[in-house]
Structure formats: C-alpha cells, structure tokens
C-alpha cells in the first residue's frame, strides 16, 4: 500500500488524497506529475497503466480548473489500484508524456489529445487517432456541441474519376 505520507515526504504537501467507495485518488500538481508517476512505477511497483483519460470541467459547479487528466494505475502482482489526477488549463494545456514509463500510454495519450486538445510533450508520435487529420476541433470538450452542422459538411468529396 502506498501511503500519502510517503508521497508527501518525497514531493511536498501539494499532493492530496481522496477516497470514494474503494477508489483512491491522488491529486498532483501538473509540474510534479512525471516525478510522482515515475516514483509510483519504480518504488511502489504500479507496473501497469490501465488507462489515461481527461475530464472537461467547463460549467461544472465548484470546479476551479478546466481539465483534469486522469491516470489509472494498477499493481499487477498485488492488485492494488490508484488513480492519479492532474489539472491543466487553457490556453495551452500540456503535460509531460508517460510513454517512457509505460509503452501502453502511446495511444491513450493520442486519444486524449484528439478528443480534448491536451498535448503531451515528448510523445513519440502525437497525432489525431480517431478523428481525421484535417479535423480542427476537439469533440469531447464541453463547448463542442452534440449536434450541428460543421466540419463534416466541409470534408472534401472525392469522386470516382478523381480517385
């Protein structure tokens, strides 16, 4: 079991913990994220990255930051799970890439970039993954509407004779 006191001793008091049901959340300042994650991997053997995702807090009551990026970690041998959250804000949301720690982070970070426009520095191949390369918006942001006419109607149409 990783304890909050150990992490705070190492990385200062900016780290907070929260528990809901059986999920443990560790909130980390963005600038310390990579250090904390790498300590969790090497010292506390959270050897599997289950998922990376993000949440857009626009208009969420009581929210102070625009986005949270969420890292779900698992210790395969003991089965212990922990969730690490870091906040990022506009205009230039960016976090360090964790591909150097877990190779599996590659596509997960690409998806977060594709859907939320949060970029990951030092990612080996940060491109859009689900949306086409020409797409200009970030669909899972809260200011992107569910319905409406837009990008799709501007896609180039290639006829059979041109193709």
């Amino acid at each position, binding site marked *: 079991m990783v304890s909050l006191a150990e992490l705070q001793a190492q990385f200062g008091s900016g780290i907070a913990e929260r528990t*809901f*049901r059986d*999920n443990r*959340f560790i909130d980390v300042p963005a600038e310390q994220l990579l250090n904390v994650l790498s300590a969790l991997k090497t010292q506390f053997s959270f*050897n*599997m*990255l*289950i*998922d990376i*995702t993000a*949440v*857009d807090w626009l208009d*969420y*009551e*009581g929210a102070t930051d625009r986005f949270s990026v*969420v890292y*779900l970690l698992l210790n*395969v041998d003991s*089965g212990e*799970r922990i*969730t690490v959250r870091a906040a990022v804000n506009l205009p*230039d949301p960016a976090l360090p890439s964790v591909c150097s720690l*877990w*190779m*599996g982070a*590659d*596509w*997960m970070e690409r*998806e977060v970039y594709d*859907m939320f*426009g949060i*970029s990951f520095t030092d990612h*080996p*191949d*940060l*491109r*859009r*993954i*689900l*949306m*086409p*390369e020409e797409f200009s918006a970030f*669909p*899972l942001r809260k200011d*992107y509407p*569910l319905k409406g006419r837009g990008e799709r109607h501007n896609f180039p149409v290639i006829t059979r004779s041109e193709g």
Partner: protein
Amino acid sequence: MPLSPVETHLSESADREYVWTLNFGPQHPATHTTLRLVLTLDGEKVLKAVPYIGYLHSGFEKLAEHLDFNQYVTIADRMNYLSPLANEIAWHHSVEKLLGIELTPRCRYLRTILAELMRLHDHLLNLGTTALDLGGFTAFLYFFQQREHIYDIVELASGQRFHTSYTRVGGVLFDVNTDWVNRVRKFIREFPPVYEEVDRLLTKNRIFVDRTQGIGYLSREDAINLSATGPVARASGVERDLRRDDPYLAYNDLDFDVICSRGGDCYARYLVRMQEMLESLKILEQAIENIPSGPVNIDVASDMVLPPKPAVYRSIEGLIQHFEMVMPNRSHHVPREQVYAATESPNGELGFYIVGNDESRAWRARTRPPSFIHFAMFPHMIRDHQLSDVVAVLGSLNIIAAELDR
C-alpha cells in the same frame, strides 16, 4: 495548435528501393471489421505496420454525456457487439458503484450467467473466425451453430437477440422463468460434444499449429508494459482475472480456475480461450442450479428503479414515482464524485470511469476499451513476421472495431 506528423513510413532511399507499401483494409474480409493497416514490406516480411483507426468513430462518449444511465445502455451494448450483454453489465456495474447500489442476490446470479454466456459467445466467434482466416472452415460453422443457441437464450430473456439493452440501474428489464433456466441447462448439456469436436479439429491440427505457434509473441514484461488484460495477458503469463482478484456479481460464490499460459504466442492465446470456455461452462453449471429466488430488481422504495407497471397504471403514487424516474433532473441521487469500476469482459478489462453531477446523466463516461489497447500492441507484435501472419495475430487479439473506435 497544429502539430507536424512524425514520419510514419520508412523512407524509400536508394538502398531500400525493394521496400513496398501495402494498404490492408479498411474493407478487407480478414479484418472482419473496419480497420486499416499500412504495412511496409520487404518481399513478404513486415518491416513496419501503422494502424489507422477511427472509421467507425461515432462519439459514444459524447453521447454518454447527453443520455441518462438507463438510456446509455443501448449505446454501450453496441461497443463490443460480440458480447453486448457483457458491455451492459460493465456499464451498469460502474453506475451502480457510483450510486452505491447493492444488487439483489437473484440479479447477481442472473447477470453472472449472462456474462458467462457472453464470454462463450465472444470466444466462439473469435476462435471460429481465427480458424476461418487460417483456412479451417468447419470449426467456424460448428461454433456459429452454438452461437445461435446462445442468441436464443438471450432472446428468451430479453426479447432481443443481439443488442438486448437488458440491464437497468439496480436490476434487469424482465425476470427470467423456468423455461429459460431449462434452455440454459440444455445448452450446457449439448455444448461439450461440439466443443470436443472442434478441439479435435484444431488443437493438434498440423496446419493450424504451424500457422499460430511462435507467431505474434508477447512476453510477460511487454504484456504488462503495454497494458494488456484478459486472455491476451493471461496467455503471456500474467495471472490476473478480475473475476477472482476483484470479485463482483456472484463470482465469489463460484468455483473456477483462471487459465494462464506461458507461451505468449497466437497458439497460447487460442489455448487460453479454449480452456476459458470450459471454465465458463463450469461457472454456468453452478450458477444455473443455484439461482436464488426473490426479486430481481432492488426495492422500489430506494427511488432508483422504475416501479412495476400495475403500480404505475393503478395508483397515483406509482405514477408520480414513474414520472420522477424518467426526468433526468429528478430521478437518481447522484453523488458529485468520480468512480472507476471494471469487469472482466471476454476481451479483457472493460471499465467505465464516470463523473457524477447531481442529475441522472454522467458528466463524463470514459470507456476503457480492451480492443483499443490491444490494437496499440499490434505494430510491436507483427514486426518481422510474414504478411500471412497478419491475420493470425489480428484474430488472436480479437479486435472489435466498434469498441476500438467507439
């Protein structure tokens, strides 16, 4: 913020002019769904594979923010369409964790039986089509016949063969009857002979073994580092099964083994799936004989489930409660919290990360899709293999494009 794409293809310099590029998919019979690979080949040797995905992207996660917890089940079961009920169970498992709902014993057993039927259903198709792609047509037909029986069982329970939308917050749509129980018993009786026949057709078949053994090797370290779960991870020696390690539903009461292999290749993944089907049958046998009686849904007084129809039509209290339950801002009492809960779906760990926001819809509902994470490993696994191994590796990873792209 435009980013320049990095170089994704090996350049055709003068000393590499023999390198050629093959576009595999998005419409190709062996991909089974809409996937596209750009393969860089030296003769028939794959030097590099670059997957391009997103052809089936339909914004499921965006829709989750606009549909309530019961409506979104119709979208969730369209993710992995080989095992729709497994997705529904995973979705409502997470929602119920967020809401703090404890299911009734009958519902836990019923969902366990359905989840195991779905595991059989998924493995039957996966193994059948893997054999089909590698030239074994018979196994495919035998297994598809069995899938029909599972469709019939599911239809009898929910009224739908395929996209059942059967689970609800706190229970399921309808209870099952004795006829259904007998149908499952009949399936448990009739399945093993067919299984044995296919086992004899494939497991020691020289051609099948040659095409899969040593192909697409994934070491234990790589499996963990690349976030593999489910049969793919277990075939590489990662002893992890959420049914045992993080028991949910009724798995704590049931006796079964976690199947692992050290092989790490396509053949090991085939063997793990084959053995898992026998374990699923074992679970089914125990669960179907021990279904508790009692209500299938949680108590109506909890204000979490719709009241029964007679109460809605014949009493004003029932009508009011029904009305409130279908209003997104008045139904479930949702904590403003975040929760992640996962189930062992046939393909691996299928989890949902849900953010609650007072009303009966998720503020954000992230799916952890096993197909997406397994397909990311594909370029690592196929390097330096032959072109014909592409279909063997794709089949052994069981990539479902609808779940991949969501």
